[in-house]
């Protein structure tokens, strides 16, 4: 294949990738977009294999088939609640792939030392960071926040040694320096993600997603390959924008989420003691009665709903209410799941039509006209302290204003505070009724009452 034809194929692949992401602007175009993405990848791979740069393909085809089988098998098997850890795992493998390419480039005597090193560093951090993120999401590492003494100092020292060694390697090309760089950047990835807790995971995954893109850019520079640079930049932009959206939804800076570690400074929040206030509790049958006589019910699901596997029961409840003429809508906070958009996928899996699911900005004004807000497995994202208490660690975080609804039902196991450790005054509000118990069981009991 002549070089000009190869470049033309790469151009087509680029266009297909851009259309693939563009397609995600709406659920109607997203599937065709994904198929174009697959086509683009196919074109890029076949064109490269038929170019003069590749002289032997049998081993390569074996490697692609092996990877393809593993990838498709795990993608079909994974549960949607475990989606974040699978994305983390795939990210890590992409990073590791960049590491191997960079090492192979250097040992075969490439003179693009700086570019290969950049690909290596970013790929290695993406790999080890993703490995830790995976272990945390999968529950292999149990502790929420693991802190160790002089955390920032150690990371800073590792960072400085990476810069020094990179300069040394670029100038002198000593291969052992390159191996040391690999090890140190893998260690840095571990140490950076280890202290980050569960609620910040959406940010971490987005950042690692961006890294896997920038690693591709680095490799693109070392191989003089424009396709890698363009695609890497788009993936990098995607990860960066998602990180920004996530941190904004928590009213935190990226630096704070990545290095701060929530839970250090919220011991001052016990200014309101919960003992002198009482929360009213209600029963599923009462909740069913109130909801079937309502005009509009807004359901606010959180990650707890997914943990309890209550999404199908929830959908059954919504269907029964719709049959009785009630308008049912779903309100989703940007950080409601363990990764961006996670809750939307979980609801879609339960066959909730996407037209009924609304984002924070779209639905917040509607709580005032809603008769019932049904909060299930969510807590911090509804906490009015985020608007009132300037000392609160969640102050400034945009919240779903469920307190404006006529009646608020909270499905919760207990009055315990949410992940942030902040008490929620909404539990004790006059219009709040608590439904204590497992999210799935409570919802199923409501469904039973509705159907009687």
């Amino acid at each position, binding site marked *: 294949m002549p070089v000009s034809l190869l*470049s033309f194929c790469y151009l087509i692949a680029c266009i297909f*990738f851009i259309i*693939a*992401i*563009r397609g995600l602007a709406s*659920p109607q175009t997203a*599937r065709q*977009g*994904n198929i174009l*993405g*697959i086509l683009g*990848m196919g074109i*890029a791979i076949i064109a*490269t294999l038929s170019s003069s*740069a*590749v*002289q*032997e393909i049998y081993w*390569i085809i074996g490697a692609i088939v092996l*990877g393809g*089988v*593993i*990838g*498709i098998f*795990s993608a079909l098997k994974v549960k*949607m609640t475990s*989606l974040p850890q*699978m994305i983390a795992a*795939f*990210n890590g*493998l*992409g990073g590791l*792939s*960049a590491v*191997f*390419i960079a090492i*192979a480039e250097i*040992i*075969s005597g490439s003179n693009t030392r700086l570019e290969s090193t950049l690909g290596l560093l970013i790929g290695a951090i993406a790999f080890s960071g993703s490995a830790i993120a995976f272990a945390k999401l999968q529950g292999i590492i149990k502790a929420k926040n693991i802190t160790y003494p002089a955390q920032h100092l150690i990371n800073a020292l590792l960072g400085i040694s990476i810069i020094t060694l990179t300069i040394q390697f670029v100038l002198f090309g000593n291969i052992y320096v390159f191996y040391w760089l690999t090890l140190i950047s893998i260690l840095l990835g571990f140490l950076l993600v280890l202290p980050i807790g569960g609620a910040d995971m959406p940010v971490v*995954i*987005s950042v690692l997603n961006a890294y896997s*893109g920038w690693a591709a850019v680095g490799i693109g520079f070392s*191989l003089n390959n424009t396709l*890698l*640079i363009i695609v890497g*930049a*788009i993936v*990098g932009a995607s990860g960066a*924008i*998602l990180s920004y*959206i996530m941190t904004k939804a928590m009213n935190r800076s990226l630096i704070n989420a990545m290095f701060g570690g929530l839970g250090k400074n919220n011991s001052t929040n016990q200014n309101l003691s919960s003992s002198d206030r009482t929360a009213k509790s209600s029963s599923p049958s009462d909740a069913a009665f109130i909801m079937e006589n309502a005009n509009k019910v807004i359901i606010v699901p959180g990650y707890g709903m997914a943990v309890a596997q209550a999404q199908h029961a929830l959908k059954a409840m919504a269907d029964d209410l*719709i049959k009785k003429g009630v308008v049912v809508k779903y309100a989703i906070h940007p950080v409601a799941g363990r990764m961006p*958009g996670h809750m939307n996928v979980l609801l879609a*899996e339960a*066959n909730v*039509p*996407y*037209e*009924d699911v609304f*984002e924070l900005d779209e639905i917040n004004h509607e709580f005032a006209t809603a008769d019932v807000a049904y909060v299930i497995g969510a807590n911090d994202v509804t906490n009015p302290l985020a608007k009132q208490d300037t000392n609160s660690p969640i102050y400034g975080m945009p919240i779903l204003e469920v307190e404006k609804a006529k009646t608020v039902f909270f499905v919760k196991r207990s009055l315990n505070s949410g992940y942030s450790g902040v008490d929620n005054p909404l539990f004790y509000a006059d219009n709040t009724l608590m439904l204590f118990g497992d999210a799935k069981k409570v919802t199923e009991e409501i469904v039973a009452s509705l159907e009687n």
Partner: protein
Amino acid sequence: MNIDIWTLLTILTLACFVGYFVVWGVTPALHSPLMSVSNAISGIVIIGALITAGISEMNTAKILGLIAVTLASINIFGGFAVSHRMLIMFKKKKKESK
């Protein structure tokens, strides 16, 4: 291919702008598929791996390249497959439900 560094930097800068605008256009409901699609297409590093693994002689560099091809393939096939699984779940409302 031999392209000078300024041309590559120009391409990188323009690609960042394209990425910025295209990604902001993605609806928040599809942010999870966005992550898995972008994950799959970041498997484009496979191009680098193919070139590294494409040398005719079997040596350490080729073996490293083949490992990289396998890892990137997991990323590509897995990423597109899981995106497809997610996207077929986003259905329009059935007529009888409204």
